[in-house]
Structures are given as C-alpha cells and as structure tokens.
C-alpha cells in the first residue's frame, strides 16, 4: 500500500494571537506554529493502515517554522520518507498551498500514483478552501471528508470509510481507490513518540527538500480587508464568592426561571 500524508503547520493557539501592524495578518513575533491537529490524525491513520497492510507512508509538507520538528516526529513514528517544499513565500492560503503541494507531488519520483492520500479534514486557517477537496480536484481523484475510520480492501482496491454526520450519526461509504480522504479523527489517538526517538531520527534520517514549483495555480483569492478580535456580543453575568454563596445565587436564578 502506498500512502501519502499531507501535513500543514498552523498557528499554535496556546499563545495569544496578535494582529500585525498591517491590521490584516498575524503578528509573527511570538507566533509559534504547530501541526494541524487533524493532520496528526491523518498520519496516525496512515501508520495504522501501514501496520495492517504493509507498504509505505510518505509525508509531505510546505516549509514553515517548526516543520522540521513535525517531519522528524513523523519519521520517528514510522513514516518512511519526508519531503519539505522549500523556496516558496511564507504563509500561503490553503488554495495556493494545495496547488504547490500537488505540483510537487508530481515531481517526486515514484510517489504518484498512491493508493491513498490522507490529510486532515480541515484546519483552523482554512479561509479560502479546504485542502482535501482541492487536492482531489487537482488530481482528479474521489474525495470524502470528516472521516473517522478507514478499512482498506487491497484485493479489490476499495475502502470502507466512515464519515461523521450531525447527531452522532455516522455514514458508511465504499470508496474506490486511489482516493483522497480528509481525516477528522484516526481510529486511535495519535501515538506518542519518545523524544529520544525523534532525536535519533534527526541524526539518522533526512528530510528531503524539494523546490516549490512556479506559479500559484490561478486560484482567485479574496483580499483580506481586516483581521480583528471577535466582538463579544455579550458576556455572562459573573457570580462571585465562595462555592456556597454561588450555589445559593444559582438556585435563586433557577427559581425565578421556574426550574427549581
């Protein structure tokens, strides 16, 4: 089985996000980047499939701060190869990023066609599109997103795929491979890899750099006018004091609402 996993670095929201001087983009001074969480799940799903069916997992990411850590961690977890796309400009939108990824995938010898291309179902910085459907459109492959389970039948090149719907309902689909899947959650939480293993990967394995292709695919993006902190429509009336006092106030409120 040949699986390609696409990873993206996104702003780490543990840090306070600050708006830059231009009022329309992030202030990068204290900004830290972290792997898009659903992409971690995509990698985990790929590794689980590799354990079940053997084969290879190749991870590809656009160059970004802290991407090396992410790629070496992927290698330490069991990915076979890692590629970093370099020489492009900084923070790209999802559409331009997807275009650059696809164009590069074509240049990596032996990579395509892959049986499965997995990436996160969505990311917190998806403003002008989602990666999975864009990739599938450009590669002319079928796509399904919000996936929480993938069972591959290598004999007839299909996969049983589960997608999450509202209300806890799940849909079971049959997908012909090769396909692109947007993973929401892997069947198991992304595995832990000890730091020593990542450091060992940094010494013994390489991230292959691939130059970014020219062009941006002609995707029409919408100009950003302004970036703002959300306007708080209202705020809760805060109850203060020790727990017993808050509890009494709470009961009063419930009583006035006829709930107690």
């Amino acid at each position: 089985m040949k699986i390609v996993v696409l990873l993206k670095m996104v702003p780490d929201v543990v840090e306070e996000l600050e708006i830059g001087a231009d009022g329309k983009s992030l202030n990068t001074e204290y900004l830290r980047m972290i792997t898009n969480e659903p992409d971690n799940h995509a990698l985990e799903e790929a590794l689980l499939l590799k354990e079940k069916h053997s084969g290879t997992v190749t991870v590809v990411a656009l160059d970004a701060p802290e991407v090396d850590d992410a790629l070496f961690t992927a290698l330490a977890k069991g990915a076979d190869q890692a590629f970093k796309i370099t020489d492009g400009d900084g923070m790209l939108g999802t559409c331009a990023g997807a275009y650059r990824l696809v164009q590069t995938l074509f240049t990596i010898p032996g990579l395509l066609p892959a049986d499965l291309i997995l990436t996160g179902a969505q990311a917190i910085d998806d403003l002008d599109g989602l990666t999975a459907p864009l990739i599938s459109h450009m590669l002319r492959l079928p796509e399904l997103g919000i996936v929480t389970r993938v069972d591959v039948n290598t004999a007839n090149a299909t996969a049983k795929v589960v997608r999450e719907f509202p209300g806890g309902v799940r849909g079971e689909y049959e997908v012909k491979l090769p396909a692109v899947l947007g993973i929401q959650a892997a069947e198991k939480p992304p595995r832990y890899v000890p730091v020593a293993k990542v450091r060992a990967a940094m010494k013994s394995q390489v991230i292959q750099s691939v130059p970014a292709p020219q062009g941006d695919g002609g995707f029409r993006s919408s100009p950003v006018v302004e970036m703002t902190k959300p306007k708080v429509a209202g705020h809760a009336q805060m109850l203060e004091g020790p727990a017993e006092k808050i509890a009494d106030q709470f009961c009063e409120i419930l009583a006035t609402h006829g709930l107690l």
Partner: protein
Amino acid sequence: MATASHGVSSPLVACEIGLENLTQFPEGRRVWTCIQCGTCAGTCPYGEMMQYPPRRVIGMLSAGELDKVFNSDSLLNCVACYACTAKCPRGIDLTGILLPLVKEQVLMHLSQVPPELQKALENTLRHGNPMGESPRKRTAWVKTAGVPVRILPEDPRPVDVLWFVECYSAYHPRGQDNARATAKILNALGIDFAILGNEEKCAGECSRLSGEPGLFNSLMEYNMLVFEKYKFSRIVTSCPHAYDAFHYRYGVLGFKYDLLHIVPFLAKYVDRLKPMLKRKTDCKVTYHDSCCLGRHNHLYDEPRRLLQALPGVKLVEMVHNRMNTICCGGGGGGMWLDTYYKAKGNERLSERRVKEAVATGADVLAVACPYEISRFEDALKVLGYEKKMVVRDIVELYADAMEV
C-alpha cells in the same frame, strides 16, 4: 532492616547510560549484584499491582526477556517514590537509573500511552511545562506577588540567589500561593534574589522518571544554556524534583552551582525568621516527608526544625514517617495517571496517606513539594475530610505567621 549505603545516586552520565551498556558504568554494574531478595517489591506502595516489580525486571534483564516487560503496562504503576531504592540491600539505584530506562521502552511499546500522561509529556516538550500553558504566562503570578520579584531577562545584573520557581508554583493556582509566599519570605529576609521568568522551563526530572530521558536531556541542555547567560552565586528551588535533577543529573553538563531546596535554605535562616513570626500558628501539624527531599536526600530534620520554630505548633508524626513515608502518588508520571490507576483498581496513594494524616488528629498537613498540595487537597475532598484538615506548604505557614 538493612538500608542501602546512602540510597543516593551519584552524578552520572545521564545521557549515555542505556540498557545495552549498563556494565560500562558503576551504577549499571551494581544492577547485576541483585540478590533477588524482593525487598523492593515488598516495600513498593503498588507492589501488589505490579506484574514486574524491580526484582523481576532485573530477573527478566538477566534472562534476556526484558521485551516481556516492555510489552506490559506494569511499570506505569511505578510512582518513582524511591522506596525500593532506599531499602535495596545492594544499593542499586532502581528509581533513578534502571527503571526510567525500562519505562522508556514501555512508552515505545504501549499500543496507547494513557492520554493524560501523553499530553503532559507533549506539553512539557513543546511549552516547557506539563500543563500546556504558554511560556509567556510563566510570570503571570509575579503581578500579584505583593513584593518586587526581579526577572533576570528584564534585568540581567548579577544576583545572589537564582530562585528556580518551577512549573506548578508558576502556573497552578495553589502553586502560585506558594510562589507568592516564597517571594514574600525572601523579601522579608532581605535576600537578593531573581527568577528566570519566561525563560525558565521544567527541570525535567518527572519526565525522566516517567520514562522520557530524551525529553529530560533536551530540557537539561536548554536550562544549562540559560544558566550560563546570567551571573548568580547560588540556586534555590521550590521543587524537590528540580533539586534532584540539578543535583544528580545536570552535573554531566557541568552544573556546579551551589544548590538548595527552599526548605533547607530557609532552615539556615530559622534564627533570623523566628523574631519575624508575629502570628501564632497554634495548631497541631503533621509533616509529610516527600519522597525526593526525604527518602532520597535524607532531609528529615530541616523541615521539622522549621515547623517547630512556628509559635504554637505541636508537631505530631504519622505512622509512616521519614524514610518510611508513603508517596503522594505524583511522581514517575503518577500525577497524570490517576484515571489510569482508578480504572485498574489501584487505591490512590494520596488517599492512603491522607487517612494516616487525619488519624494523627492534626489540623494541618504540612508539605514541601508542589505536587502534594493539590493531591492531598483532592484526597481530603474525596474522603470528606476537608473540614477536618488543611494542606499547607511550610512556606505558606511561614508567610502566614510572618504576616507578610
């Protein structure tokens, strides 16, 4: 019962010892002197839960079957309390050397690391604290300290004491009580002190004892570089685990600074502190010897001296005290494995300990390690004793008595 020669591990090449090269180091060779007496298993607080107590781990190591241990979750029960190490008649450093190496393999072999533990380790790597809080919030508590606290990155002049605050005191609400109290006491004593502020990262000992020597090494390398940026005469830390890390492990990267935990540090000043104690503490206090300060470093008298100096304090001892203390259950990753232990039916060690504390009739359970505050307060609540007894760090008791 015969005790180990000193029960204390010697400074050692933490980065280089591994399961494959144990015999190249004196501490490693000592492992092979195990006589399979089983004292370790007998004294372990979770001994009945462990399929592979230390004795069996060494047995499997000899038999070349250690992978069976790697594939078992038995070692997740180890809370790194040093009980086995303290009692081992051969003086084998089980807790400090052997078990972390085996635990590292367990973490790699487990099909799933318990999520809370995984998150704590990932947070420590990424943000330098197990809570996953932003490093830029590490000094948030300083604003409410009530006294000036110099932050070296902002004011890098040489200083006498570098106070290594550590994660729980910096981020946890109850830990911040401790940090504020400490700052006030140091200020009252006129000590010239400063903190590393947001440049401080976890010293890493609990990560190491959980089975992450790699994570520990990366934190050690980082902290040593930060130390080298500033000029200070000595280091004082609020966390016994940080003390252990600096004292026993950081030597490999050249750590030579004068080092004390805050309790023995303050104990030196007890005569200067006594006249400052304005308010009578007036209660029965029982002191919990922490695993690191107590059993591992034999610092039993200093905390008691400090407590007895408080006016009106009557000190009573729990059944298990000094070297026989019962761990609060927070070490070795235990801080993040409560749900895991509960699912396995392990009694919470903190509850076991709190029952002993309440049995003394004391009003206050005094502690000297940041993990213990939240663990014992939680245990008191679970057992319904929160009106009978409170948990206070020695530092908090002093700040109260000094009315600072």
